[in-house]
């Protein structure tokens, strides 16, 4: 493992398997009455969130606390950042306070990599701009493996605004690395023109893709994209690319419906569909804590692992 987790591309397939296996052990911790192990006692984890993100921040916070680390939440409203402090100066301050790991969420692609130039601790990318969201991809891979028994050979469609989605990037790279067959589905205005070079297929015909899927992964559609004239209306989007009741019937038996949240019920997913047993969004959330525990444990060189650079 590297010192930082910035991109799924930093990991080999073996690294990914190792992370999922460690997460497997940690998931059990979450089922105990006392949900806590001492692996990172005395270590300090800073959640540095430049964008609001309730679920990811809470997930990281719970993960660190279940490992007995000290957690500092640094959000940007009402802080030095709101007073105009630069990322560099914030980084140097956290460095001076002895942060062992910094979990960063930022609206600018590449900000986590930039941060590594100024801190000695590990940096975990909790989502940067339209670049990557590697912990989301890992928890999704975990959920697929847990439910379907494997990742290799799975047929996965990622549906929606791939162009602006850090989740879609990380998940595509991770799935391809693990030998899954990925199809990106959406209006061509929302698919990166060079996406086929990632080793994925591209389609604008959801109905043609659905019958061949093991996983239908839906992305949140932002109203902002309609204002940018990338598609004519949310109504038309839902009609062409929304997962409706009728479309669920085209999915093979045993296939999964996934979504990174938060969902727009009625746009990319019908409200009834989101509540079907094969829609595993809540499991994704639960598994996310175990994945983030595994990552903090591995990157900070938890018990018996030696130094963080090992």
């Amino acid at each position, binding site marked *: 493992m590297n010192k930082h987790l910035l991109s799924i*591309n930093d990991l080999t397939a073996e690294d990914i398997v190792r992370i999922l296996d460690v997460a497997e052990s940690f998931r059990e911790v979450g089922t105990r009455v006392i949900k806590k192990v001492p692996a990172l006692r005395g270590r300090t984890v800073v959640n540095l969130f430049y964008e609001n993100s309730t679920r990811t921040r809470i997930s990281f916070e719970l993960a660190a606390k279940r490992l007995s680390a000290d957690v500092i939440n640094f959000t940007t409203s009402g802080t030095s950042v709101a007073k105009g402090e*630069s*990322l*560099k100066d914030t980084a140097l301050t956290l460095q001076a306070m002895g942060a062992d790991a910094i979990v960063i969420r*930022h609206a*600018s*692609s*590449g*900000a986590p*990599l*930039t941060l590594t130039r100024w801190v000695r601790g590990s940096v975990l990318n909790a989502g*940067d*701009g*339209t*670049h*990557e969201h590697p912990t989301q991809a890992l928890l999704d891979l975990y959920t697929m493996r847990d439910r379907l028994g494997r990742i290799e050979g799975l047929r996965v469609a990622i549906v929606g605004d791939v162009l602006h989605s*850090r989740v879609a*990037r990380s998940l595509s790279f991770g799935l391809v690395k693990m030998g899954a067959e990925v199809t990106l589905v959406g209006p061509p205005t929302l698919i*990166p*023109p*060079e*996406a086929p*070079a*990632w080793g994925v297929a591209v389609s604008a015909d959801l109905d043609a893709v659905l019958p061949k899927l093991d996983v239908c992964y839906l992305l949140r559609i932002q109203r902002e994209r309609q204002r940018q004239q990338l598609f004519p209306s949310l109504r038309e989007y839902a009609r062409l690319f929304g997962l409706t009741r009728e479309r669920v019937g085209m999915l093979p038996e045993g296939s999964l419906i996934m979504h990174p949240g938060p969902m727009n019920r009625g746009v990319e997913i019908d409200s009834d569909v989101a509540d079907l047993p094969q829609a595993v969004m809540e499991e994704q959330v639960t598994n996310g804590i175990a994945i983030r525990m595994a990552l903090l444990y591995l990157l900070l060189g938890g018990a018996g692992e030696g130094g963080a650079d090992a």
Partner: protein
Amino acid sequence: MPEAIRLRGARIVDPAAGRDEVGDVGVAEGRIVPPDQLPAGALELDCDGLVLAPGLVDPHTHLRQPGGEDAETVETGCRAAALGGYTAVAPMANTDPVADNAAVIHEVLDLGAAAGLCDVFPVGAVTRGLGGEQLAELGEMVEAGVRVFSDDGRAVPSPQVLRNALTYLLAFGEVVVAEHCEDPSLSEGGQMHEGLHSGILGLAGKPRESEEIVVARDLALARLTGGRLHLLHLSSAGSVELVRRAKAEGLRVTAEVTPHHLVFTDADLVTYDTNLKVNPPLRTAEDREALRRGLADGTIDVIGTDHAPHPVERKEVEFDQAPPGTIGLETALAAVLTYLVEPGVITLSRAIEALSTAPARLLGAADHGGPIEPGRPANLVAFDPQASWVVEPPFASRSRNCAFLGRTLRGRVVHTLYRGELVVTDGKAQR
């Protein structure tokens, strides 16, 4: 006062005279003199192993003064120029206030004269305040000495306004409109070249077409008006091809490329290095190859640095928050020697032509660009083409946002003579 100097035993590369041979050059009272007519006691500079060429001329510089003195001043920029072997620079008009009137032009000229480190040829704005709507008082600026007009940083948005500028300037002879070719609606929000790497890095892209559409439009207007058009910092293969065809057709057009577009590609942005964030963006290896070929075959006429200083705190930020631009005056010659001359992409003579002779012609800088002949002003550079060095601060520029930081380059300026004065000697600025 200018002393008498003998530059002994240099390889004299003088494209304006078609000359490339080892010899001596004499300098006295600011001018070239035959070596055998030098007064006794002339300073002897051993130039064995050095190349002696006409002083370099940068047709595209940002000196930031007035208004941006935290990034650069005319004096610091001119010192950087002298250290880079330049004896003339053309600062762009996007200062604050904008150089869209004779008063600001005179201010920049005066600052240049006060620095006395190289000649300064201010570029005037085409439109008032770079606003793109009303023509600036072009004739008055021509009277003040301006030969190149540009709204650099953006294209003149309205075809009609550009048509009028090209046509109006026909009244003044060899006066040029230099266009920054970019369609803002296609490039809005773009952080880098749109392609494989922008997709992976999650950075919004600027497609090639955002440049090519405006190149094509501007060439059509040059055809319509018969005006004299110059295209700044070409970045795409398609633009080179458009210019090639326009020249074959006989349009009055010239084109520029920067050292960084000749060296780097969008693949170099994987580290989110803000010093490689430039506008137009670095494009693919295929585009870079087309730019190199275009420079070699003369489709592209001049190499301009687009020296764009920014204070360090504006560049040490998240990638999408950093302004575009790299400094270039102190590295341009070495970059061209290292990446183009040494591998045989262009000859040394072609490099000097594109760095000195052709831009001098573009700027109407008659005292620059050679030929190195008796009676001519002694604007000269002597450089060691073999000396290798690592690009690192301190720079003479007030800024240090350099795309070449950390790179090892070959080719180092030893002496720069500006009107016969050694403003740089042994690689050090003399004041």
